């Protein structure tokens, strides 16, 4: 009876483990192996040692890609960690039409990233709505280069990502806020704490676990940014490829009938390590706070 019990848990988790092994572990290992070969889309590869990794440092776009990706993550993580919390606090109240507002804020989450990016493209184009209105109002004389200036394009993509992600993380915070004990707020209010003080002393500690989770999710998603920059900036990654992200670089290397799969795999390994670093930092921060 006891031996029967010992393998029952393994049987239960076996489908999940199998899934993980076939669709996560195996591709990851395969990618690592391919990164040491010169395999192309249609031609077999041979072992070339660390050549792909040395080629990486000669890639004129790698530095830009790392910088853009890290800036994207550094700006998105704090914004998307705190703004949805504030939004959740606003829509948490039981006022008339609050369900409507929650739905409205969640709406961009449902739309595909490509559709959202195309809408923003029309808004931010030289002849788009934003430039048109600003010019009509006399605030600017010539169009602001949202889609052609390196930093404006990057921050446009960040604004788009924040706008699109607000609703999703707001929902996560709404469920976390429901677990913050009301008595703590009431006790703090009795002690004379104002709204801001109660936010920092009661709300934030109460949802810190969720904040850490949200920050990690955003960090991972930010490191994988692709559609926003691809649609806003074009397939080359903005003017001269200055707004290319790491995932775009991987896509560019691997696409086409002459795709350099070995090199793209080496870039993927680099992306993996760059993503793991911030995640470990966030996890460590969360553990220390505990």
């Amino acid at each position, binding site marked *: 009876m006891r031996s029967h019990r010992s393998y029952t848990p393994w049987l239960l988790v076996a489908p999940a483990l199998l899934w993980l092994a076939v669709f996560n572990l195996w591709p990851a*290992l*395969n990618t690592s192996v391919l990164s040491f070969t010169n395999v192309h889309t249609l031609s*077999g590869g041979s072992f070339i040692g660390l050549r792909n990794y040395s080629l990486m440092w000669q890639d004129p776009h790698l530095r830009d890609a790392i910088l853009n990706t890290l800036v994207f993550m550094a700006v998105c993580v704090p914004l998307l960690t705190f703004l949805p919390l504030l939004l959740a606090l606003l829509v948490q109240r039981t006022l008339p039409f609050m369900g409507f507002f929650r739905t409205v804020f969640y709406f961009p989450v449902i739309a595909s990233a490509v559709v959202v990016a195309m809408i923003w493209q029309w808004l931010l184009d030289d*002849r788009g709505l934003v430039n048109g209105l600003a010019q009509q109002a006399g605030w600017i004389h010539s169009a602001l280069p949202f889609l*052609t200036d390196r930093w404006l394009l990057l921050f446009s993509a960040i604004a788009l990502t924040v706008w699109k992600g607000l609703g999703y993380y707001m929902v996560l915070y709404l469920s976390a806020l429901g677990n913050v004990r009301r008595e703590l707020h009431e006790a703090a209010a009795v002690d004379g704490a104002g709204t801001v003080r109660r936010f920092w002393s009661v709300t934030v500690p109460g949802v810190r676990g969720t904040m850490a989770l949200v920050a990690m999710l955003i960090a991972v998603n930010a490191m994988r940014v692709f559609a926003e920059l691809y649609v806003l900036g074009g397939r080359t990654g903005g003017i*001269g*490829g200055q707004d290319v992200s790491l995932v775009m670089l991987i896509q*560019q290397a691997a696409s*086409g009938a002459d795709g350099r799969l070995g090199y793209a795999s080496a870039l993927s390994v680099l992306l993996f390590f760059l993503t793991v670093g911030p995640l470990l930092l966030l996890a460590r921060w969360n553990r220390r706070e505990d």
Partner: protein
Amino acid sequence: MPRIRTLLALATAVAALAGCGVGGGSGEAAKQTVATDSPLKGEISFQTWSLKNDKFTPYFTALIKDFENQHPGTTVNWTDQPGDGYADKVTSQVTSGSLPDVVNLPPDIAHAVAKAGGLLDLGRNVPTLNQDYVHSGLKAYTYADLGTATYALPWYLGTDVSFWNKAMMQRDGLDAAKPPKTFDELVAAAKVMHDRSGGKDYLMSRPPGLGDIVNSGTQLMTPDGKKFAFNTGGAAAMLDKYTAAYKAGYLPSNVLTSTYEGNSALFVKQQVAWTTAGGNYIQSVQQSDPSLAPQIVPSPALDTAPLYVQGISVAAKSKNLPLALAFAQFATDNANQVAFIKLAPGYLPGTTAAAGDPAYSKSDGTPQGDASVYAYQDMQNAVNFTPPLWTDAMNTALNQQIALAMTGKESSRQALDNAVNQANQLLAQ
């Protein structure tokens, strides 16, 4: 220790399995000689690229029926792939071993497939190849890095013709009956249009590419064909002129961004008065926008015209090579090509017997008829601008550098130097 042994075993297994995934092309399959003396039988698959529609479907249905009637006991299964992502589709077919037996491929995709050993050498299997098919077409499917083999039968040839919007040009003081003939005349006319319309109308609407570099008198590669070397003074001067025109506002400001729809789309929207397109463009516009078609005036391509070739290849790993080879030859024989081109005026057959037919040089007096004649004339001297070694990644690098030059972030010379360096680095990989 047992743990280390397990890890080593796992790593070895992973490496072995990954090796299987790498795959590889063998040139041996391509070099085989097909036995053509036995009767034809069995089934093959035939794939075209974006040709299943009201106009062409009846042609292919009749073509296949005709072949099957001539060879009882044979079946040709026709599939057509949509226009977008054709290279990716063919790539996945090659890697999954499901490339159709007979397949329509442009030279760049054919090069990648041939390099992987996926296409039959037709020079070895069609004794009359050089007599039957036009040399420019055969040349497009013969790749210096793959020896002397020929990997497709030329099917149809196309080039660019210039098309002008008569009403827009008249409105801005230009004469569509005397359109620009060179790039310099184009820039001068673009200035007139820009100034007269207050910057609302455009004549030029595309950034330069590889074709413009060739048209500046530049050889793309070194004489031995082993390296790119298009960073010349002539190419830089051409890029300087484009940059000056862009800065002066003669081109739409978004030609370098993702919102640029392409000069053909802008021409249809009547925001731009000049586009280049295939010889049957007016016929296409007649169907999509009958009000615009009468406004279109054709003229020969500026400077040297580009040559576009489409060919029919045979998969080296076909399980019925005799039938595949016979059908490829049947589809591209003179009679069938002539019948095919009748549906697409402005294109030329890939057979020598038809391509020189003087009938193609006679216009019926309509603008579409004139365009067809210009296409015929242009094709006599047209050049295939894109070397087979030129990949998507190289094109991306060139476009990026051109964009940097046109926005003043780099000098034209520096941009071309960078593009050449990147292209050569990619070539070495």
